[in-house]
C-alpha cells in the first residue's frame, strides 16, 4: 500500500485517506437517523467518505446496515440528520435523483431485470442519463440513433471489461449466480456513479470467487474513479480491501478506523463475540 493510501486524521475529526484530504468528501452524513414507529433503527450516524476511498460497513445481523444504504439512496426518508452527496444536500430528492447525483448500489438479494437481456439491463441503467425526450424516441430523430448507438457501445465495453460479452443476449434471470452478482455491479457502474454501494457483494461466493471480487473492487476504484462503500460479512475481504471501516451495532456506530484499529477494538470484539473475559474464564 502506498503512502498516499494511509488513513489520517482530517481537521474535522474524521478519518480520511491522505490523498483525499484536499478533496471534498463524496459522501457526508451528519446525525443521520430513522425511526420506525418509535424504534430507532439508525441513530446519530456520521459518515465521511473521500472520493477515492473504499469504506466498509460491518456489524452483526440486524444492526441496521442495509437500512443505512436505504437511507443513503432515499428508499427510506431519514427522520433526522443530513446526507450530502459531493457537498449537495439531498433533502427532498427522490431515489432516481439520488442516482443521477452519482450514487449507485447493488442488492443483498440480487434484483436484476430478470426477463431483460444482459445488455438491456446495462443500457436501461444508462438511459436515464441520456438527453432527449419522448418525442424524439417516437420519431426516431438522428440524435436518438446517435445516443442509442453510443449507449450500446458503452454497455458492451463495460460488459467486456467484466468478461461478460458472450452473455449479452442472455436473459439476466438465467445467468448463473456469480454472474448475476457481477452483472449487478456492471449495471450499477453503468449509471456512472461517484460512489458505489455494495450490499454484501461476496454473499454466497466461494473463496476463489471472493478473491476475484476483492481484486475487482480495487480495480473498479482505480478504473472508474469512484468511491466504494460496502457491507460485508466476510472479514477477510473487509480487512484486506477497505481503507476505513465502520462498525454498526443496534443502529449506532460503535467503532471507526483502519482495519487494524477495528480488529483490536474491544467494543467490536464484544459486539461480535460477546464479552471476551467471560468467554476466556467461563
Amino acid at each position, binding site marked *: 500500500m502506498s503512502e498516499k493510501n494511509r488513513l489520517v486524521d482530517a481537521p474535522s475529526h474524521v478519518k480520511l485517506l491522505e490523498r483525499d484530504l484536499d478533496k471534498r468528501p463524496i459522501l457526508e452524513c451528519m446525525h443521520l437517523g430513522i425511526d420506525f414507529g418509535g424504534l430507532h433503527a439508525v441513530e446519530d450516524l456520521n459518515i465521511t467518505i473521500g472520493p477515492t476511498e473504499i469504506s466498509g460497513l460491518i456489524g452483526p445481523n440486524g444492526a441496521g446496515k442495509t437500512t443505512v444504504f436505504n437511507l443513503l439512496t432515499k428508499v427510506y426518508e431519514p427522520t433526522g440528520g443530513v446526507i450530502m452527496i459531493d457537498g449537495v444536500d439531498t433533502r427532498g430528492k427522490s431515489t432516481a435523483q439520488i*442516482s443521477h447525483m452519482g450514487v*449507485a448500489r447493488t442488492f443483498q438479494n440480487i434484483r436484476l431485470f430478470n426477463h431483460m437481456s444482459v445488455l438491456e439491463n446495462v443500457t436501461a441503467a444508462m438511459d436515464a442519463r441520456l438527453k432527449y425526450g*419522448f418525442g424524439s424516441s417516437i420519431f426516431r430523430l438522428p440524435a436518438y440513433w446517435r445516443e442509442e448507438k453510443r449507449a450500446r457501445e458503452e454497455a458492451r465495453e463495460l460488459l467486456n471489461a467484466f468478461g461478460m460479452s458472450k452473455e449479452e443476449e442472455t436473459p439476466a434471470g438465467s445467468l448463473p449466480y456469480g454472474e448475476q452478482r457481477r452483472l449487478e455491479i456492471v449495471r450499477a457502474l453503468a449509471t456512472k456513479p461517484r460512489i458505489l454501494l455494495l450490499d454484501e457483494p461476496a454473499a454466497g461466493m466461494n473463496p476463489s470467487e471472493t478473491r476475484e471480487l476483492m481484486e475487482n473492487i480495487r480495480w473498479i476504484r482505480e478504473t472508474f474513479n469512484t468511491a466504494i462503500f460496502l457491507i460485508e460479512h466476510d472479514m477477510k475481504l473487509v480487512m484486506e480491501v477497505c481503507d476505513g471501516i465502520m462498525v454498526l451495532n443496534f443502529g449506532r456506530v460503535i467503532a471507526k478506523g483502519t482495519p487494524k484499529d477495528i480488529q483490536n477494538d474491544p467494543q467490536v470484539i464484544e459486539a461480535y463475540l460477546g464479552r471476551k473475559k467471560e468467554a476466556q474464564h467461563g
Partner: protein
Amino acid sequence: MSIFLRTFISGLNLGSIYALIALGYSMVYGIAKMLNFAHGDIIMIGAYTGIVAVMNLHLPPVVALIVSVIVCAGLGMLIETLAYKPLRQAPSLSVLITAIGVSYFLQNLALLIFGSEQKAYPQMSGLGSFTILDVKVDGITVMTLAVTAVIMIGLTLFINGTRMGKAMRAVSEDRGAAELMGISVNKTILITFAIGSGLAAIASAFYGMTYVYIKPTTGSMPGIKAFTAAVFGGIGSLPGAMLGGILLGLIEQFAKAYISTQWSDAIVFAVLILVLIVRPTGLLGKKSTEKV
C-alpha cells in the same frame, strides 16, 4: 360458409376493439401494478369527445380522432396524477376502490354534461364496402383491422426497441431497482397511462362506428370484456392482451351466431373460467414461481 365467414370477420372486428382496450388494461397492470377499472370509461369519454368534435365543432373525422386521442391521453395522465399517484405506497385494495370511484365519477360527469339520452356517433361515409365470397365487408371493418394491426406492431416495436419501452419493462420487473438505477418511475407510469388511454380513444372511435349509440354507461361493458380479454391472454403481457382480445371477440360472435345471442356472454365467461383452470396465468402469462 358465408355465415361462418361473416361471423369470423365481425368477430375480428369486435376482437380488435377489445384488444385495443385490453392493451391499456394490461400495460397499466404490468407497469403500475394496479387494475384501472376506470379504463372502460375513458372509452366513453373518447366517444363523446368524437361526437362533440364532429357535430359541434365540425371537424373532419380524422382530426376528431386525433382530438379524442389527445383528450383521453390527457385525461388518463390527469387521473393518474390526481387519483393514483398519491396512493403509490397504499395497499392495492385502496387503489382498486379509488379506480372504481374514478369510474363512477366519469360516468356521472358525462351524465351531467351530455344527459342520459343516448347520442349517435358520427358515421364515416365514403369508406364503401366490398364483397368476398358473398359476404359484404364494410370499409370501417377493414379500417379497424388495419389500424389495430399497425398499432400492435408499433407498440411491440416501441416496448422492445425504445428507451422508454425499456424503462417500462424495467419498472414492470422491479420498480425499486429501476428507480435506484435512475429511472423515474412516476414519469414512466404517467406515459403508460397516456398510451393506454390514447389506445382507448382509438377503440372508442371504432366502437362508435360499429355500435353507433353512446350513453354515459357505454364504457362499462366493453371495459369489462376487455379486462376479461387481458386476463384471458395473461394480464401484464402485451401479446397476451392482443391475443385475448381477438379470441374473445371471435368466441363472442361465434357464440351469438351458432349457439344463442342471449347466452353469448355466459359462454364467453365460461371459456375464460376453463382457460384459467388449465392456465391460471392466462394464455401467454408468465409463470411466477415463488422462490423459497
